[in-house]
């Protein structure tokens, strides 16, 4: 959205357009099918019958980064994985969001000490929008993280800063 951002004076028209654009963005967050470790199981559970991420319009898991909006880093990122993760993030189209799911993705979690091959926090590799703590976070926590991401999206505007 580099095309129309930041060139308008704030006003009724602009805020209404903002509302529509943000509504569509936050109501249709397509996550990427990208599970790394334990948290991926909870991510799958969140997409399955009882929790049903699809209710919030975020159930269409896309396997290719090109079509995904949200990368849920679900698990421990290792040094070997870090550059792949970075590349996947680079392949995603703007606007893109990253959610660090679980203690490992936030800070290394249980692997913070003594582990010689674990990235201590995925925010060293990609910029993170939402942190969802837990080891692993419950699916409810993931959904809460998604809702917080929706809140974050709805603050974006195309008006001049």
């Amino acid at each position, binding site marked *: 959205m*580099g095309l*129309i951002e930041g060139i308008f004076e704030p*006003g009724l028209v*602009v805020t209404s*357009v903002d509302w529509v654009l943000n509504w*569509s963005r936050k109501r249709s967050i397509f996550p990427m099918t990208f599970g790394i470790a334990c948290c991926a199981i909870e991510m799958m559970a969140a997409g399955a019958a009882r929790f049903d991420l699809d*209710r919030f319009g975020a159930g269409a898991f896309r*396997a290719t980064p*090109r079509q995904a909006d949200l990368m849920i880093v679900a698990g421990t990122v290792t040094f070997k994985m870090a550059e792949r993760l970075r590349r996947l993030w680079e392949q995603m*189209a703007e606007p893109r969001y990253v959610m660090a799911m679980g203690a490992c993705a936030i800070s290394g979690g249980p692997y913070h000490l003594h582990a010689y091959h674990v990235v201590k926090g995925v925010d060293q590799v990609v910029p993170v929008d939402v942190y969802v703590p837990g080891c692993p976070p419950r699916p409810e926590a993931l959904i809460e993280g998604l809702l917080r991401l929706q809140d974050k999206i709805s603050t974006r505007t195309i008006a001049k800063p």
Partner: protein
Amino acid sequence: MMYVPERPPVEYKGLSLAIVRLATKWGPAGISLLLRFAWGVFFAAIVVLVTFVWAVRRFINPLLPWFIRDVVVVVGLLAFVCIVAIIGIWGERKVSGRIQSRLGPMRTGAWHGWAQSLADGLKFVQKEDLIPRDADQPLFRLAPYVALVPAFCAYLTIPFSLGWVFRESDVGLLFVLAMLAIEVLGVIMAGWASNSKWSLYGAMRAACQLVSYEIPMGLSLLAVVLSVGSLNLIELGRAQEGGWFSWLIFRNPFLFLAFFTYYIASLASCKRSPFDLPEGESELVAGFHTEYSGFRFVMFFFAEYVAMFAVSALATILFLGGWNSPVAGLCSPLWFVLKSAFLVWVQMWFRWTLPRIRIDQVMHACVKYLLPLSLLLFVGSSLWQLYDNRAHPAFEGFAGLLHYVLGGVGLLLLGLFFAGAGYGYYNRNRLVGSMVRKHLPGA
């Protein structure tokens, strides 16, 4: 590896800076938007001008009412196709949710997430326009149009009811089939231009699958054409007036089977499960549209649903009585849309029930079974047609009897379907398990 800041905003210089300043200073956002899309405005102006000149020349022409009708119908068709795709995509997610004891989209829009596909579409418009560096740029840009536009063009000769058609054509059926066949070109183009191995696999699979299944599909339809003696879709619909028992699917046993061969082949030609190999997610990441993002991807998505409805519409017109109601006399475009939507729903039902076939099995199924069978049906139907006339009164009697038997079988199948659905619905607590329903998000 460290964090790289996002791309800085576009810098304006010289004339563009002046324009942007002028536009923003003057306030109204609309003018600024118009100026930002100057190229688009330029082309739109040319189109409007040409249309205007043409319209003026037409104005002194007695054909003006026809011209206005054409414009209105095309715009209406476009709107209809968009609505079909939008409802189709939303419906797919709802149907899949219900099949999987989930709810599907619930939040977007007030009622059952009805606005989900609107939000999806609007979001994809806002996405960054990504073209891989090594992609074949012109082809990459062209491919989505090649996939979507012919699928839309197919609707130009599809009659929705008597008189509800853009152009009545004597080769309407051929036109629709030809248009639907062009879609594969867009798919191959997309797969090739993406310069990705997964895309290439998807494209090659699409090529061999779609091209092979054209043959049984065409042969099954030819059986119908022979028994009616017309390629005109209106004529084909007219031949089925008079209620349930006069639908072509019940005309003779060969046509009854031809409906099923056509339906299976149409699944393959729409890349629907179990023939969804070109975009099979668990094998080829996303198949031929792996590298597509944003609105181009939406166009492929649209094309799929538009084509789904188009093949179902063909099946409706050729086999299921088109716009004729099951009871004689009540013909309406509503029947046509309803029957087609039912067939689309069955496609979704398949999609969320069946696993995917392997590529060699796809080809085996076509070449070893479907192709000989449809050829046999074609020959059989022709022979039946040869003897089903006044010159063979005994055969005519037999044919009439069989005709009603087949109609009865069809009624029975439909009744069984509804009975099964009703049984499942009334015993849903026992069948799914009360434990499950207690915990569902909407319960």
